[in-house]
């Protein structure tokens, strides 16, 4: 385990070198937040309105918190690096090292994301307080459960993205699948909470990764209840198990296809 912690630590140190590039990406983030704030302020013509159970304050907090996972989890390690490793045959040089490639990549994903997640969390919280103030009745003792839910959402997001990248063993480019996944998360999770969709669609959305990756953790911040926490936690644990297993299976099947020509 020490080696995996070292991989995490080394990637974290490496990521500090890229602070400027993280900060640069904040431009896109600020634009997206500004658009969302303007849009929802218009929809909530009166701040005291409640739409599908959300006040404007709750809606903005929901969006800002969900952006922590989408922007924070947007690691080049689990998208570009895996695809590159598979395409140029570098993966072969990893599999003869005394670590598991998936463990290596996963630790790099976490190490690479820590700083980004913290920065986005800090800025998101600041913006939320600035735009709409604190969430009324927020109980700080629940924070530990919310963080746990965020961590699990972050893990599932990683497993899914790694699995998508591993498709490069079979297809030329996994990028279109990442695009679909990201848009799916954005529309069904970030832009609109599940409650905004028609009633008949809501149960189906609850079964998708959106519910456990984006909706769950964000919803817990704006409207915490132990009942909701329990249902989200169960969903997250099932998803962690299933997506983790799928990721391992896809890797095991794919790695047999490694064909590195001599040079």
């Amino acid at each position: 385990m020490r080696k995996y912690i070292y991989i995490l630590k080394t990637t974290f140190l490496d990521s500090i070198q890229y602070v400027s590039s993280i900060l640069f990406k904040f431009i896109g983030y600020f634009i997206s937040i500004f658009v969302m704030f303007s849009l929802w302020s218009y929809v909530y013509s009166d701040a005291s309105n409640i739409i599908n159970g959300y006040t404007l304050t709750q809606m903005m907090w929901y969006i800002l918190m969900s952006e922590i996972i989408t922007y924070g989890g947007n690691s080049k390690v689990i998208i570009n690096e895996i695809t590159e490793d598979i395409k140029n045959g570098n993966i072969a040089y990893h599999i003869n090292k005394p670590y598991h490639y998936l463990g290596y990549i996963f630790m790099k994903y976490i190490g690479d994301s820590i700083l980004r997640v913290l920065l986005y969390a800090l800025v998101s919280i600041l913006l939320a307080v600035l735009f709409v103030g604190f969430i009324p009745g927020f109980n700080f003792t629940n924070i530990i459960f919310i963080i746990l839910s965020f961590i699990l959402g972050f893990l599932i997001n990683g497993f899914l993205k790694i699995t998508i990248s591993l498709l490069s063993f079979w297809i030329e480019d996994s990028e279109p699948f990442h695009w679909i996944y990201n848009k799916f998360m954005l529309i069904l999770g970030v832009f609109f909470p599940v409650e905004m969709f028609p009633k008949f669609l809501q149960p189906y959305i609850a079964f998708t990764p959106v519910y456990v990756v984006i909706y769950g953790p964000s919803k817990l911040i704006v409207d915490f209840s132990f009942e909701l926490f329990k249902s989200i936690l169960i969903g997250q644990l099932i998803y962690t198990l299933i997506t983790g297993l799928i990721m391992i299976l896809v890797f095991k099947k794919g790695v047999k296809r490694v064909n590195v020509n001599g040079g």
Partner: protein
Amino acid sequence: MKVIEVEKLSKNFKVKVKEKGLKGSIKSIFKPKYKTTKAVDKVSFEVEQGEMIAFIGPNGAGKSTTIKMLTGILYPTSGEVKVMGINPTKERKKLAYQIGTVFGQKEQLWTHLTPYDNFKFFGAVYDLDDAIIEKRIKEYKELFELDDFINTPVRNLSLGQRIRCEIVASLIHNPKILFLDEPTIGLDPVVKEKIRTLIKRLNKENKTTVFLTSHDVSDIEKLCKRVVIVNNGKIVLDDSMENLKYHYLNKKIVEAKMKEKINLKELDGITILKDKDYSLKLEVDTTKRSISDAIKLLEPDKIIDINISNIPLENIITEIYKDTK
């Protein structure tokens, strides 16, 4: 003690074949065609502990594929491999602790980190204690003369400095065998010489077995006592460097500059390689003719300058490649 045992090792690659043009491209989507190429074909050899062996051959001969099978990167199609008594395909991770690999064309170092941080990282990957890692870094820092740049990010190092660090990174866990796949590729002669000296010292001081592939004949000549030449996936020669030279060096090259043009007649054992104006170049097979026969043929009083040399090893190897095509 045998550290590498290879018997009838083969590796076939399935390569997609596409017909020409748009029609061919569309056809290959629906009905892909493949052909099988034999990269390595029933290769057998053994390597003793502490040996420095050169594994050479032209491009596409199967050298790197063999190294990749020996290090567990590729699965053989058939045959047996044992490295340090371990089957690389079945116990890849166990083998990783016993071997070090440097692929001249692949970077394994993290470019944003310094060599020192990289060595610490690789040490941790191989489950070494911090104290041992520090001790090894200190040793190799001296052996490979890394003092000046051990704290400079790898991306700012020259190629020669980087390769030295790559070798140290692959040695941090004290492997019994070091696989070097074209370690001096792209380096200038001075740096090449430095790296050769370091590899030699490593072999002498630590008794590390070195398995080397290179296109650079000087690498082979200066480092290895044994040469294995592969071509078209097969071993065409497995001999000591001494024998290789002895068998082929009975041919001498005689180059002469003449006062005036002379009429040369080829004799059995003397081949005219060049006869242009006043310059002549002869190849003398010393098993058939003596050097003095060649000089007599040139008419000694007409010679201004003469040079007698061995056939360069490079030419010998090229000849062997050609003969086995």
